[in-house]
């Protein structure tokens, strides 16, 4: 059917723009022209605005709220308080972690900037004037910002609403400010290993409170059609389908009457997974007023109220034999969850996937205990560009391995090579019960060591040290666990964490695919199209990828935890394979041969042994609507819901070289070499972009990002004046590299990469900084490594002058 004058197989392959090709991103055409469509670009007829009166106190009783003056401000339409939401039972809302969170403060405020009242007005000016006119009378209460103090015997009770309850969703409580204890591993075996160990090390490792800080903050436009009784909710949602279900459950609206649309999203990094009071108040507002209500938070609101990340006070211990072979790991975590337990993890995992803490190492015994604690700080605890609590775990083990290396006098590369899971051990089951799908850690690290001339660097460091100069070399060899996840161990509110793809092939051979995930900058429109291009033989340019509209896309759990490629990417491949199976039937009919006589080549089915006899996918698509074999239904469509059999385990080896100015404490990153293995590489350019972005965020976290609180609970650093967002000037140059160890269980062998650089990066920077001081007996330094902290270390060692 096809003439032979056309392109060669290689040329056809190249035209597809499929898996492995570094094609440009389809979405960038609109982004670089400023034509993206973000929530704040949504402008509906009759739309009004809402924003919050926020508490200046971190802990106070609300004695009264006077809204009269605010209501009298020209342009103000309504002022909502907890008292108004109470009859609707919407003054509190459930969190993803089984707790409840005040939508508008009910009798008490629990953290600074907490939402106290919601003012709705014709424009943002009227709303701001209205906010200023609301008078709230507070009686301040003693404040707890330190989780250790929160557990003191005589500590003030923060959450009076759950006083006396022995469980708020994630386990038994032992103190009024305690949320849960999560305990995994073999305590006895671990204790035994420690008591018989030749060497043990212990370190207090605090992973500071940071914030994902996407460029676009959170927001929504809620619009109720009072005639049809239908609610449309536009919003910055990483998981739009889950939002629809949650809104239905909270607001009591039938789910089919709710349409959730996540338009273009300007970065999420975990910040846009949760449900926030703004969504509820805008929804109530539109129901009450019959007009669309927009709420978009400002930068200070974003940094101080919508979900933060980390705040993990970890105590790590390793036991080892005299050669530095690790025999056990023990970790205790005091997890500061703030005022409400609203962290976003798969529901059954109170510390997410923290039990990946054995990392890339073959450790026979482990025991972990995590205690969640309430404090007078904003709620959250999301995975900021990492799979659930993986960066915390990875930071702990990567730091501890360095601590151990220093104690036993081993080189920091050598101790890793010595303890790695070996290639023959895969699939490898860790002592904490994760089945690592594939990996080759030795090859990865050795490649990096060679690329940077590791020995040469260590020699240079020796020399520098002799001259009193501080140079550090940091290594991180991380293992990620991404692609949540198998429904047997992962769910959100009881919904299994599968994902989905629906494909329709049009008669002329182009296609549309819809998926249950939601890109926030990851480039899904491009990479999914590339998977489909290779699977279906349709050029990626001819495939539209759509996500984010719950009325059109199949149900999925959204994008976070590097799950899109491992889960929805797999669904895409599987759906495509269904289509291909039907296409084979049609091709056999078209070519008048049996299905078994056909073989697939790039974009067509060929008759075996008769290469000129072939039907292209384009031809088959047309035939699907016109020339079908008996009994086959017309059309060429498929849906796949993919419940992954396992997580995927991307890994990498990073190396960072720093020079420290001992007089100012400034740390200069001289070199950063990042090798990532994410299995099959779909688009090397997109991967490179993800790695650059992830490393830049890791750099920000390790070197500057932190949200701190003074003793009265005032949040500090919650604006761009202080919160460290590196610019191109501060950002180091990234050198990237890769190995390819495909996932054996994923349809195309891909593993997910968006978060690896953040997980591995933070420890690499931190290890480099500490390494600069290692010869002076320093084994750990607290993050972030801001100049003043690093200088304090210098001063303590007497080298700061």
């Amino acid at each position: 059917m096809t003439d032979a004058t056309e392109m060669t197989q290689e040329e056809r392959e190249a035209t597809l723009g499929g898996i492995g090709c570094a094609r440009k991103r389809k979405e960038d055409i609109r982004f670089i022209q400023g034509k993206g469509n973000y929530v704040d670009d949504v402008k509906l007829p009759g739309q009004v605005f809402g924003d919050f009166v926020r508490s200046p106190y971190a802990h106070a009783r609300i004695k009264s709220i006077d809204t009269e003056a605010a209501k009298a401000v020209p342009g103000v339409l309504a002022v909502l308080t907890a008292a108004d939401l109470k009859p609707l039972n919407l003054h509190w809302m459930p969190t993803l972690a089984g707790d409840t969170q005040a939508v508008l403060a009910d009798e008490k405020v629990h953290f600074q900037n907490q939402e106290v009242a919601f003012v709705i007005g014709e424009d943002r000016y009227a709303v701001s004037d209205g906010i200023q006119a609301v008078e709230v009378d507070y009686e301040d209460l003693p404040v707890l910002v330190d989780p250790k103090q929160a557990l003191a015997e005589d500590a003030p009770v923060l959450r009076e609403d759950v006083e006396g309850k022995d469980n708020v969703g994630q386990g038994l409580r032992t103190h009024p400010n305690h949320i849960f204890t999560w305990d995994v591993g073999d305590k006895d075996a671990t204790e035994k290993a420690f008591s018989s160990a030749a060497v043990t090390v212990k370190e207090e490792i605090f992973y500071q409170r940071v914030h994902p800080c996407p460029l676009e903050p959170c927001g929504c436009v809620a619009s109720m059609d009072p005639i049809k009784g239908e609610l449309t909710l536009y919003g910055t949602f990483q998981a739009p389908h889950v939002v629809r279900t949650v809104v239905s459950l909270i607001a009591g609206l039938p789910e089919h009457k709710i349409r959730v649309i996540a338009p273009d999203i300007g970065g999420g990094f975990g910040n846009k997974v949760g449900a926030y009071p703004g969504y509820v108040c805008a929804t109530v507002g539109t129901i009450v007023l019959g007009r669309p209500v927009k709420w978009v938070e400002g930068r200070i609101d974003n940094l101080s109220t919508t979900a933060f990340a980390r705040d993990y006070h970890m105590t790590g211990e390793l036991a080892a034999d005299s050669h530095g072979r690790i025999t056990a790991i023990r970790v205790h975590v005091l997890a500061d969850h703030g005022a409400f337990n609203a962290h976003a993890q798969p529901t059954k995992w109170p510390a997410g996937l923290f039990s990946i803490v054995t990392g890339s190492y073959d450790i026979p015994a482990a025991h972990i205990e995590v205690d969640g604690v309430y404090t007078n700080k904003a709620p959250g605890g999301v995975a900021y560009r990492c799979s659930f609590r993986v960066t915390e775990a990875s930071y702990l083990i990567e730091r501890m391995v360095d601590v151990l290396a220093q104690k036993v006098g081993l080189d920091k590369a050598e101790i890793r090579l010595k303890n790695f899971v070996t290639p023959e051990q895969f699939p490898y089951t860790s002592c904490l019960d994760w089945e690592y799908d594939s990996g080759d850690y030795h090859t990865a690290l050795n490649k990096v060591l060679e690329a940077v001339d590791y020995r040469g660097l260590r020699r240079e460091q020796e020399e520098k040290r002799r001259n009193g100069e501080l140079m550090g070399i940091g290594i991180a060899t991380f293992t990620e666990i991404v692609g949540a996840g198998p429904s047997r161990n992962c769910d959100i509110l009881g919904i299994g964490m599968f994902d989905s793809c629906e494909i329709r092939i049009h008669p002329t051979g182009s296609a549309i695919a819809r998926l249950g995930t939601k890109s926030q900058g990851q480039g899904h429109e491009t990479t999914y199209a590339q998977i489909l291009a290779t699977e279906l033989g349709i050029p990626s340019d001819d495939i539209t990828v759509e996500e984010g509209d719950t009325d059109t896309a199949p149900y999925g759990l959204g994008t976070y935890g590097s799950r899109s490629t491992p889960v929805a990417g797999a669904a895409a491949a599987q759906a495509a394979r269904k289509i291909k199976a039907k296409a084979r039937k049609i091709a056999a009919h078209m070519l008048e041969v049996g299905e078994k006589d056909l073989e697939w080549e790039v974009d067509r089915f060929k008759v075996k042994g008769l290469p000129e006899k072939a039907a292209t996918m384009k031809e088959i698509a047309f035939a699907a609507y016109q020339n079908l074999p008996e009994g086959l239904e017309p059309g060429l469509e498929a849906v796949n819901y993919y419940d992954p059999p396992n997580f995927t385990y991307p890994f990498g080896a990073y190396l960072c070289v720093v020079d420290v100015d001992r007089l100012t404490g400034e740390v200069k990153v001289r070199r950063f070499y990042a090798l990532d293995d994410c299995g099959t590489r779909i688009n090397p350019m997109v991967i490179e972009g993800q790695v650059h972005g992830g490393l830049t965020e890791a750099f920000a976290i390790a070197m500057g990002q932190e949200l701190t609180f003074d003793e009265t609970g005032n949040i500090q650093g919650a604006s761009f004046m202080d919160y460290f967002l590196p610019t191109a000037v501060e950002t180091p140059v990234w050198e990237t590299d890769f190995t390819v160890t495909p996932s054996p269980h994923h349809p195309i062998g891909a593993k997910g990469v968006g978060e690896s650089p953040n997980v591995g990066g933070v420890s690499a920077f931190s290890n480099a900084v500490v390494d600069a001081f290692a010869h002076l007996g320093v084994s750990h330094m607290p993050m972030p490594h801001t100049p003043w902290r690093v200088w304090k270390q210098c001063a303590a060692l007497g080298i700061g002058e």
Partner: protein
Amino acid sequence: MIPGAFEYHRPTSVDEAIALMSQHGDEGRVIAGGHSLIPMMKLRLAEPGHLIDLRDLDSLRGIQPAGRCIEIGAMTTQQEVAVSELLAEACPILREAALLIADPQVRYCGTLGGNVANGDPGNDMPAVMQCLDASFVLRGPQGEREVRARDFYEAAYFTARAEDELVTAVSIPIPPAGHGYAYEKLKRKVGDYATAAAAVVLTMSGGSCESASIALTNVGQTPLFAEAAGQALVGTKVDEAAVARAVEAAKDIAEPVADMRGPEEYRTHVTGVMVRRAVERALTRARA
């Protein structure tokens, strides 16, 4: 992040601007580049009822020699200061300091007059002006007067300028040819105010220091003219002992507050480091 309501005025002459200022008293506020004022208004930390926009006052723009001084109009932007050939030649510390202010976007809008009139200890130009012994030309309903930068700053956001006075220009005595200079600023990132910064201008003659002037940014309620620190260098070869005395003298007057940039102890310490580095660099630039 929405400012309160205000009336907007755009005078076309300096006299008109001054008349508006006296008419509105503490309800009025002039706006130049807006890059300090507007952020404050958005946070409602400043809520002027009347904004008097100076942008049409072309007579307040420009960089001219005026005898032994250079006069820079208040509405001259920081960018114009950074790229002026005249300044690069005659008073290059201004270019060096201007380029350490914020980022290009801010420098294209922000003015020299706004930077010195603002009274924020974080601003860089005030200390540079103290170092250069510049004066600010103030004009009000009563006429014109000049106040030395070294006498201008009283406390954070409080200056010698009366409510109805406009800064019309900055007058800078041209430093002697062959002077050495440096502005050293420690900051966390581009666009950040100083953790500590030091401006140094010195002259050398026959291997010894003839004059030296040192001023500090963001380590007190106001910019600090470190007179004793400068004096510690004069008459010396600017050797290690003299530099150490200058550093100590500068640290003695530094009174930084603890903030996210670091605790007091650190900010005082790096004040010394900035002074040392600025002196050392100025020395390499000075013609003996």
